[in-house]
């Protein structure tokens, strides 16, 4: 068996049609990753039963784990297909789309919920003027910068959302990644001014309180974004905001 690489892939032809499974085997080559193996399958899309089929559809781009587009479930776990090295995986390698998002076709999902939810939490910074405001660049302490940089590594791949027991098609939860961006935007010197707006956005339906700390998000994040630390800090910020809302200040 060592001279082939076997795959079991969940297929779905249409967003509304049912799934089915197909198995493929490609000749063994050292240092294949899941994307390069999918490319090899596409060259010769014949199942192990000898049937010639339409090649599986997937999404990918950068091939260096920075764009976040090739997220899929490899052996049940959401991760980046490009950095999933075949030599480290148990075979047959089971590929599924991230089913907490709507499936477009085969392994390709519609991750627009990620961007919609970033909008929901106002994860942007209002510009402080299109003219020269005659002030220097804002100063940020190295400690704060350290955390901000870790948060800014998020590439909206959606792995954390797939692993979260509270995120899903039929549920309202914003999800871990957009929550972490609230903390990043709140700590920006200009972004600070919209802090209360963002906190109120996550103190509403589907907001921070829908998290119950299963903490899968931080375990699957390919960029090691400190998601659970962010959720804890947002817990503190929302507690303080709640007190400000009730008692003023």
């Amino acid at each position: 068996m060592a001279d082939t690489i076997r795959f079991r892939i969940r297929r779905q032809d249409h967003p509304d049609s049912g799934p089915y499974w197909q198995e493929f085997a490609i000749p063994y080559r050292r240092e294949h990753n899941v994307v390069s193996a999918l490319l090899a399958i596409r060259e010769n899309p014949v199942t192990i039963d000898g049937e010639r089929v339409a090649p599986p559809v997937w999404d990918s781009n950068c091939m260096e784990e920075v764009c976040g587009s090739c997220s899929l479930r490899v052996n049940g776990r959401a991760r980046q297909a490009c950095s999933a090295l075949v030599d480290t995986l148990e075979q047959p390698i089971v590929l599924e789309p991230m089913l907490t998002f709507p499936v477009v076709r085969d392994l390709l999902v519609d991750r627009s919920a990620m961007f919609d939810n970033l909008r929901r939490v106002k994860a942007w910074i209002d510009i402080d003027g299109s003219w020269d405001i005659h002030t220097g660049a804002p100063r940020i302490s190295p400690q704060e910068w350290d955390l901000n940089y870790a948060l800014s590594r998020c590439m909206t791949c959606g792995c954390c959302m797939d692993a979260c027991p509270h995120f899903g098609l039929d549920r309202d939860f914003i999800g871990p990644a957009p929550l972490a961006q609230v903390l990043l935007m709140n700590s920006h010197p200009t972004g600070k001014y919209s802090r209360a707006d963002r906190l109120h956005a996550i103190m509403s339906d589907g907001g921070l309180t829908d998290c119950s700390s299963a903490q899968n998000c931080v375990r699957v994040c390919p960029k090691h974004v400190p998601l659970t630390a962010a959720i804890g800090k947002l817990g503190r910020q929302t507690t303080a905001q709640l007190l400000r809302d009730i008692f003023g200040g």
Partner: protein
Amino acid sequence: MQNPHFLLRRVHSLVGLVPVGAFLLFHLWENSKSRFGQEHYNTYVVEKIQNLNYVWFLEVFLIALPILFHGVYGMVVFWRGKQNVTHYGYFRNWMWLAQRISGVGVLLFLLMHVIGTRILAIWNEAVRQDMFSHMKNVLSEPYFLVPYLIGLVLTTFHFCNGLWSASIVWGLATTPRAQKIIQVASGVAFVVITAVGIHGMLGFFLAS
């Protein structure tokens, strides 16, 4: 104006700590006095509490209603989650599932426990006068002893694991290190509180 969705969940968390969690500690501590024997227990534990000023008010507003709210809203939270431990078998994910299962278990246990003690005592004079003997009889029956033991462990687990998640919810523990420390502390608390509870159950048999 606060969003009710946010407030309900935070009140759910707060109520689990105080008064429900605080009452659990008080309850197990008081019951550990069973080791002093029938007379002491009936006089200085049961009667003393029954003679508290406005005890019915405390029972309804500090115990019954908070537990009812925590339980009912807990079921809402329960249905909002979808377990995935088969895909993600991490420790904290298992604890997430255990928190939900124990919550349902505690509700079933409380139904049995409250009917069999407090509610039974309303019309049963003998039970009201001698709760010690009643509990001793109940716990002598394996059909009750086993559910009581399981119910106790589920309750203390649910409380201690809830302490951990509440520390994140309210923003006390923010760093992974702080969350780890609270995880260890709540584990120790689980062992100690469960021991106090079992000690209280044993007291009915070992009392002189």
